[in-house]
């Protein structure tokens, strides 16, 4: 992961110096033509991406901001301008504040539950143990399965009449049987278990890749110095895994803020807020599309966008900056800013 991040700026800085060298050697006409060709090349290569980005990312953001100022049912052009009324309603609606709280809980608990477990799994799978590749595949399988199948499968197993409660009863643990997804006191924990099960494979693969990138010489030197296994992991693996962990945490945070599919599939359209598992995205779909309040739904989308953007930029600025400064060359870092 971090390797791809490194590779891009280096490549561009490399080609820059090449072009400078070529320009000096050629006569004037050739130089103008080369300049023009360079611009055409940039335009042709980046044009489609820029057009797609503007049309499908930037334009919708502005349209959402526009629609968010209207009370609009989605028919015809919006006419009923209400200023910031939608935003006032959003931040006074207990259901939205609950959804925001659930997102925050999922965000923190995802980091707390998956991070240490993923590092531990990766440490284990980095050893020479029997059946290592099989375990690697098994841990990664949940991540590959589609969300719809995961959601449907878990929701069937966790029903009150479902497989888990049957299993508990048959094992003599009937007192533990409960309504895993409908009980508002435990539903969000059930969701956390499912999310962790689903996404830990991805974290483990990232951590493993990060561990592969740590030079063997360091371990050898530490071993010669007589460091114990745990000391080596604590003082070599963990610090050098830092960039990987921080990038994983970033992806996990973004995923937590945007969580929609699992909740929507398991709890359906209407009961997520009652069960205490609603997220900002399920709130948006329920209050915007299902209720037919398209103006309001757009305002919710803007709020989600702003919250995600602020968190992402803050994280980039204060946490990921260390990695770009440390991992990239000095020159590439300057170009980045």
């Amino acid at each position, binding site marked *: 992961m971090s390797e791809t991040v490194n590779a891009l700026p280096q490549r561009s800085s490399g080609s820059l110096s090449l072009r400078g060298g070529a320009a000096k050697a050629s006569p004037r006409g050739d130089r103008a033509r080369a300049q023009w060709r360079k611009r055409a090349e940039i335009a042709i290569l980046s044009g489609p991406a820029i057009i797609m980005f503007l049309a499908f990312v930037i334009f919708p953001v502005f349209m959402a901001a526009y629609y968010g100022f209207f009370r*609009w049912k989605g028919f015809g052009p919006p006419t009923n301008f209400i200023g910031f009324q939608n935003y006032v309603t959003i931040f006074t609606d207990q259901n939205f504040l609950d959804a925001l709280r659930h997102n925050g809980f999922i965000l923190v608990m995802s980091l707390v539950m998956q991070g240490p477990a993923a590092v531990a799994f990766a440490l284990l799978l980095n050893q020479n143990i029997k059946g290592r590749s099989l375990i690697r595949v098994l841990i990664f399988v949940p991540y590959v399965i589609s969300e719809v199948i995961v959601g449907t499968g878990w*929701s069937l197993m966790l029903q009150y*009449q479902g497989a888990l409660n049957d299993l508990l009863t048959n094992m003599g643990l009937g007192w533990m049987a409960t309504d895993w997804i*409908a009980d508002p006191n435990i539903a969000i924990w059930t969701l956390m278990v499912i999310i962790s099960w689903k996404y830990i494979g991805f974290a483990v693969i990232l951590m493993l890749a990060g561990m592969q990138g740590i030079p063997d010489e360091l371990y050898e030197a530490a071993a010669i110095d007589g460091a114990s296994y745990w000391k080596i992991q604590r003082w070599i693996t963990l610090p050098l895994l830092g960039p990987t962990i921080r990038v994983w945490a970033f992806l996990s945070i973004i995923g937590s803020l945007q969580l929609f599919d699992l909740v929507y599939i398991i709890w359906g359209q*209407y009961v997520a807020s009652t069960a205490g598992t609603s997220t900002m995205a399920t709130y948006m779909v329920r*209050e915007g599309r299902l*209720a*037919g309040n398209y103006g309001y739904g757009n305002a919710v989308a803007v709020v989600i966008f702003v919250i995600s953007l602020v968190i992402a930029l803050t994280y980039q600025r204060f946490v990921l900056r260390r990695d770009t400064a440390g991992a990239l060359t000095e020159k590439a870092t300057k170009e980045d800013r």
Partner: protein
Amino acid sequence: MTTSAQQGAGSSAGQLANHKAAMELMGAWEPGVVASLTPNGKSLPDLGWFPFPAVTGGAGDPSAMMGGSDGFACRKNAPAACVDFLNFAASKTNQEGYAKAFQTLPANQQSQDVVTDPALKDVLASYNKASYVMLWLDTMYGQNVGNALNGGVVNMLAGKGSPADIVSAVKTAAAKG
């Protein structure tokens, strides 16, 4: 709360069909739905029906009913064939076929003789005697307020809200669109 209504033996209708639940609040489609969920796929012989009991001190008329009293409409500029088609669908023979196929109530009064299921006959008798029939309340309120109403009721049944919360949820929804 997350139990589905009509899909599979674990749904609320399925539990009724398999004698795992005693009763549920449902509409006149119930005998047909339950029949499709019984172990042998035939209609449930001991399925019965009773009107929603009057609430002590309530102002409502116990004989009044709620239901899908909505219908189909033709667009203003629709061709005459639209009316013809609706009349065709509502004709005596077609409604008889519909009621038999789905074990439910026909929309045409003249087709009521084909109803043989005892539970449905009870429903039909009460329906014909009802002081008035009104549209399902959530349908009448529309997607926005209707959904908020349903959500408030679910909250209350789950122990997470009071009747006053239903009213405030409905008011919040009205502010949204």
